[in-house]
């Protein structure tokens, strides 16, 4: 089954582009990708979510996992998510650790 995300991990920055529905059929594969980063120096994980239509609890848990397991100094961004997803992030308190922005400025390239 084709995954609806892509991962670009270099220079300590993981850029993950999400699309379609991130639910129980897709989230485990995403979690597996994130697990590969455990133990590596990761300064940022950036989820590009402009084309993300729906996120289920399993998808959110994958993001929590990213924050909790990869490194306490790792910053986690959610970029361009539509309002409903941003609301879920806010109502569940995930906005405490997720940096939600409309656009992402790539500090690594500057």
């Amino acid at each position, binding site marked *: 089954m084709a995954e609806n995300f892509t991962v670009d991990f270099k220079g300590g920055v993981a850029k993950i582009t999400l699309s379609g529905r991130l639910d129980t059929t897709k989230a485990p594969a995403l979690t597996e990708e994130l697990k590969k980063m455990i133990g590596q120096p990761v300064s940022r994980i950036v989820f590009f979510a402009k084309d993300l239509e729906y*996120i289920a609890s399993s998808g959110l848990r994958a993001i929590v996992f990213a924050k909790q397991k990869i490194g306490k100094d790792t910053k986690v961004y959610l970029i361009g998510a539509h309002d409903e997803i941003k609301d879920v992030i806010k*109502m*569940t*308190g995930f906005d405490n650790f997720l940096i939600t922005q409309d656009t992402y400025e790539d500090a690594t390239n500057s």
Partner: protein
Amino acid sequence: MDRIDIFPTDTWGDFRLRPGKPMPFGATIVPGGVNFSVYSTGAYSCELVLFKKHEPKPHAIIPFPDKYRIGHVFAMIVFDLDYEEYEYAYRMDGPFEPSSGHRFDKTKFLMDPYAAMIGERDVWGTEPDWSNQYQHRARIVQDDFDWEGDSPKEIPMEELLIYEMHVRGFTRHESSGLKYPGTYAAIREKIPYLKKLGVNCLELMPIHEFDEFENCRKTADGRRLLNYWGYSNVGFFAPKAGYAATGKYGMQVDELKTMIKDLHKNGIEVILDVVFNHTAEGNENGPYISYKGIDNKTYYILTPDGHYYNFSGCGNTLNCNHPVVRNMILDCLRYWVVEYHVDGFRFDLAAILGRDQSGAPMHNPPLLETLAFDPILGKCKLIAEAWDAGGLYQVGSFPSWDRWAEWNGKYRDDVRKFLKGDPGMTGAISQRVAGSPDLYHWGGRGTRATINFITCHDGFTLMDMVSYNQKHNEANGENNNDGGNDNQSWNCGCEGDTTDPEILRLRHKQIKNAVTLLLVSQGVPMILSGDEFGNTQFGNNNAYCQDCEISWLDWTMLKKNKDLFEYFQKMIAFRRNHSALRSSRHFQYRDYLGSGYPDISWHGVKAWQPDFSEGSRLFAFMLCGKHARQGQEPDNMIYVAMNMHWEMHGFELPKLPAGLSWHAAVNTDMASPYDIWKPGTEPRLDNGEVLVGPRSIMILIGK
């Protein structure tokens, strides 16, 4: 190095298994897998049924091998289970012998009594698929919430100001102006309002998973009536998904925890209304959900021939003092305190928790004692609704060990009678304002034992209490036969809505009288949400089934009745500013500090001469500020004069020590904003008497 106990020992199809840990019960995430543990004293065998989320048919059915059972507990670890993907159930085989209490049915899917999250009823009011054989589905919860250092607040009981609220009704009305009305998230958005009002504790009507479609029906005019209040448990450990804006994402646990964390950050505690007296399985005609098919004889109080005793009025009665059920209740309360940081519990029909396994009241009920002395519950609030539907009425006598407080129904009744001008109430009122020592002074129980309230979800709102002589429950479709008839209400001259300015003025004054009396009484005050802006249920005193404007708070009333809100707000602040109103101990009626005044004294139209006669409707009391909190936190002298007669009366004021004079702080006979004065601006009174208007209360402070 990996632990040796995380390796599977057996397989079942593609599943890898290992004998589980019997404790804790429920589904627990362990290294490599999920530990499932369930007990049944009567089952021969048990199967774990795994469903893919939302799928009608099971994905896998895994029998517990005999060697996985210890005592009465079936326990199994399933490895590599993607727990976000699954819902689970049990099937149990055992005897079907109703006459001896067993009702096993191996065809039924049964929900884990310890289910921490329950799925498939994710959005409030969405008609379920009734053909689904497994309606309420246990899900597995991860413990990854970031509390950011939060813990239960442990506000002293005497400092509490409780605000009773229905999660949905508080914000569901479109006038709340919120994006996701009727949810935990919406309450979070209303925190600034709650802070402005000044309350520091929310008591939430049931938020455990219940079925709003239980006994749902349509009225003659086609409206659907639901179980809106939710006093009927499907699962004791799971929050109601339909109250979460994120329920459809399965995120209700996080949303509720986020709400509690934010309330705590803002100095507001959370008390849950818990319903351990019965479950949603009803009697022998009710559905199998969980307990009935897992261990019917253990969970319910049964007659000798196997029928359900009904002390709850709802079909069955939980067997609360069975040791196994007792432990489940204890586990449940600990879970809510540990996992959700809740600050206390109000126990619905708590008298049932003191009945033995045959239904008889016990002298020292072990469940109540266990909860009173439990280390984890050690600082949380335990509040009993000290009666049940079986006729056991224990207000003032509920077993307490100085830990249990009670909803003081006598406070409600006496204050209502006094407010509407019934004669012969001054003696009772002297007890109620003093923290009901007649009910609670024995055995060293302090004022913390009494939860003082005039209105609650059950009965008239405060506006309706002053607008209706009779209940008007026609919308409930029971020919107005439901709901209490002893409301002790008075419509002030017209039944229901009116434009008569005199009647409206009197109603507002009576509301102010009520909240004034409540907030100058010793004990723990409780306000019904919406009363602070005159919310009405249009005379319905039993709106349990009304998911509509009858129950929802109409926030346009906040503007319309701005005077009431401001009065509540200022009166709450007045209570907070005066330590003399918030003692944890009862008065001694004497001067034990050498101030020259007793800690509390009674007065009438003549100072030092109260009139407790049958015809009296006047009453005044004075608190000696030096005795406030037994001298630990001195306050002003406070004098409260209450005139519930329909004519004005003069009250002679007690003399103050040299250098002090009386100042008027509150006068409910005056129109807003002259009904309550800002601290520091109270006008000084120079004559030795005050005139208290008809049906009015004045508060003076001596400073």
